[in-house]
C-alpha cells in the first residue's frame, strides 16, 4: 500500500536575479491499496513525475509524506525502496549487457543472490513473454523490448508495490496490450499494489480500479471512472477528465472525498 499525504515541492529555475520558483507539486494526496491498479491521471506538467520521484526517494519533498507499507520514504528510503519496484520515466538499459544481465544486476543490488536473481529473471521472462530476448545484448532492442526489460528489472525483487511512470510512452498497440495484461495479472494473481501515471484516459478507463486526477500540482478528484463520471454528470470520461483537470483551478471538487476507497 502506498499512502501519499499533502505532498509539496518547489523547484528554483535559473540563478540570481533571473531565478524563478516553480511549484511542481502543491498538495497531492492519494492512497493506493493492495490488489488494485491506481491511475495517476493528469495533463503534461501536472506534477505526476515529481510525485512519483518523491515516492521513489529521488527527491525530498518540502512538505507532506509518502508511506510505503507503513514505511516513511523520507525517513527510511532504503527500506521503502526494497518494497517498491519503480519503472521511471528514464528507463535506460546497459547496451553492452544482455537483458538477463541487466535484470540480474538489479537483483543483486536489491540484495538477492546470483542464482535467485537468475531464476527470477527466467520467471519474469516467462510472464512478460520475452524469453527469446534474455540472452541478447540490449543494444538494438525495440521500444517494446526495452520496456519489457526495464519492467522485469524493476520487478526482479518481487516488490509488493509497483510504481510505473507513463509506461506506455512510445509503445505500439500490441506492446501496450501486453503490458496491460501483465499489470492485470500482477494485480489479480499476486495482489500487488500498482500505481501508474498517464495522460491517456483510454488507458485509465481500460485498466484502473481507482483514478487520481492531478492538475496544477494538486489532486483534484479521486474515485473510480464510473464515480467520477457520475459526479460530473458525464457519460464520456474524456469530458469528465477535461472538466476536472482544466477547469479546476482551486482544490478538489466538492462532493469528492480525497481518497474514496
Amino acid at each position, binding site marked *: 500500500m502506498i499512502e501519499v499525504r499533502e505532498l509539496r515541492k518547489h523547484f528554483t529555475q535559473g540563478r540570481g536575479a533571473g531565478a524563478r520558483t516553480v511549484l511542481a507539486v502543491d498538495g497531492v494526496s492519494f492512497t493506493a491499496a493492495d490488489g488494485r491498479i491506481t491511475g495517476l491521471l493528469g495533463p503534461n506538467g501536472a506534477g505526476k513525475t515529481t510525485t512519483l520521484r518523491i515516492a*521513489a526517494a529521488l527527491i525530498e519533498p518540502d512538505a507532506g509524506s509518502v508511506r510505503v507499507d507503513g514505511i516513511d520514504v523520507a525517513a527510511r528510503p532504503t527500506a521503502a525502496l526494497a518494497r517498491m519496484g*519503480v519503472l521511471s520515466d*528514464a528507463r535506460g538499459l546497459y547496451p553492452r*549487457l544482455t537483458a538477463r544481465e541487466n535484470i540480474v544486476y538489479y537483483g543483486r543490488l536489491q*540484495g538477492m543472490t546470483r542464482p535467485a536473481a537468475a531464476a527470477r529473471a527466467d520467471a519474469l521472462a516467462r510472464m512478460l513473454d520475452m524469453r527469446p530476448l534474455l540472452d541478447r545484448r540490449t543494444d538494438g532492442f525495440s521500444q517494446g523490448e526495452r520496456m519489457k526489460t526495464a519492467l522485469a528489472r524493476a520487478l526482479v525483487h518481487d516488490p509488493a508495490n509497483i510504481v510505473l511512470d507513463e509506461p506506455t510512452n512510445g509503445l505500439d498497440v500490441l506492446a501496450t496490450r501486453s503490458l496491460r495484461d501483465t499489470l492485470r495479472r500482477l494485480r489479480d494473481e499476486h495482489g500487488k499494489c500498482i500505481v501508474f501515471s498517464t495522460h491517456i484516459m483510454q488507458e485509465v478507463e481500460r485498466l484502473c480500479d481507482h483514478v487520481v486526477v492531478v492538475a496544477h500540482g494538486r489532486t483534484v478528484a479521486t474515485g473510480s471512472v464510473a464515480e467520477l463520471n457520475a459526479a460530473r454528470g458525464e457519460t464520456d470520461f474524456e469530458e469528465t477528465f477535461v472538466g476536472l483537470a482544466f477547469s479546476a483551478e482551486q482544490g478538489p471538487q466538492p462532493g469528492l472525498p480525497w481518497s474514496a476507497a
Partner: protein
Amino acid sequence: MMSAAWTVYLKELVDALRDRRTLLVVLLSSVAIGPAVLMLISQMVAGIEQRAEERVVVVHGIEHAPTLRNFLERQTYTVREAPACYEQQLKDSKLGDPVLVVPADFESELRRGKVPVVELLASATNQRSQTGSGAVLRLLRGFNQEQATLRLAVRGVSPAALEALRIEERDLADPASRAAQLSTMVPFFVLMAVLYGALNAALDTTAGERERGSLEPLLMNPSPRLALVLGKWGAVASVGILIAVLSCLSFLPGQWLLRSEALSAMFRFGIGEALWFIGLLLPLAGALAAVLMAVAIRCKSFKEAQANATIVVLAVSMMPLVTIFNQEGQAPWHLWVPALAQTTLMGRVLRGESLPWADVALTVAVSALLAATAIAFVARTLRTAALK
C-alpha cells in the same frame, strides 16, 4: 554496502571490457605507441652508429688535395667521391653525409702558404648530414693543427706556443644515469596509459549513465550512493591500471627489438622497474579515476564530458614537462603534485636511485586524499545528476 559496491564493480568491469572497439583504440594509442617510438629511435641511433663505424668522408674534388687525402687516410677514414648532383641530394635528404668541396687550386695554395678555402655542405633540414658534419669539422681542425705544427717546427718554434691549454673531456654520468636519458620517455607513456585507460570508463559510468537514462533507475535500488560510486570508481581505476600494466609490459619485449647495441645497453627497463612503476601508478590511477568521474558527473552527455575531461588530460600530460623544463632540478613540491610526483619517482627508479619510504608514502597520501574528495563529490552530486 560492500556487497553492493562489489556488484557494481563487477558489472562496470564487464561493461568496460566489452567495449572492444574503445579498448582496441586505447591499446593501440597507449600500449603500442611506446615500443614503436622506442624502435624508431633505435633505428635512427643505429644509422648514426653505423655511419660512425664506417668512418667515411664524402669529398668533391679530392684529386686536387693529395695532402688532405693523406691526412684523412692516416686517421683511418675512407675518402669517397661525392655523387654528381650532391647539392640536390643533400637538399632532398637522399644523401646522409655532409659533402666537403675542395677547390681545384687547393694543393698549390697550401704549398704557397696561402689559405685555401674548402666548403662543408650540409643542410639544416637534413638531420643526418647535420649530425655527420661535426665529425668532419673535427677532422679538418686536426688537419689545420697538423699543418700549423709542421710549419712552426720548420721555423724552430715549439708547438706548445700554439696551445695555451689542452682540453680533455670526461663524462661524469655513469651508465645508469645516461640510460635514464633514453628511458625518460617510459614514465610519460605509462602515465598517459593510465589516463587514457581510465578516461573512457570514467565518462561511461557517469555522464554515459546520465545520457542513457540509466542513472535514475539505478538510484531507485536500495543501495547506498557511496557504494554505487565506490564500485564504479574501483572499476574505472582497475581499467586504468590494466592498461598501465600492459603498457609497462610492452616495453619489456619492446627493448629486445632495439637495433642498436649501445642503445639497448643504455635502456634500463627490466621487470623490477616495471613492478615499481605499477606500484607507484596504483594510487595515481585511483586519484585520476575519481577526478575524471567528478568532472564527468556534472556533464549531461558523453560528448560534453569528453570536452571537459580534456582539461584533466592536458594537465596530466603537461606534468612530465615540468621535470624537463625545470632548470633547478627536483624541488620538494614536485612530490606534492599528483602525476608530477609519480613522474619524478619513476625517474628515480630508472636512475637506480633508492626511493625513501617517506616520499612514496607522501605521494600515496596525496593521491588518496584527492581520490576521497572526488569520490565524495560524485556521491553527493549523483542524485541531482540523475534528475537533470
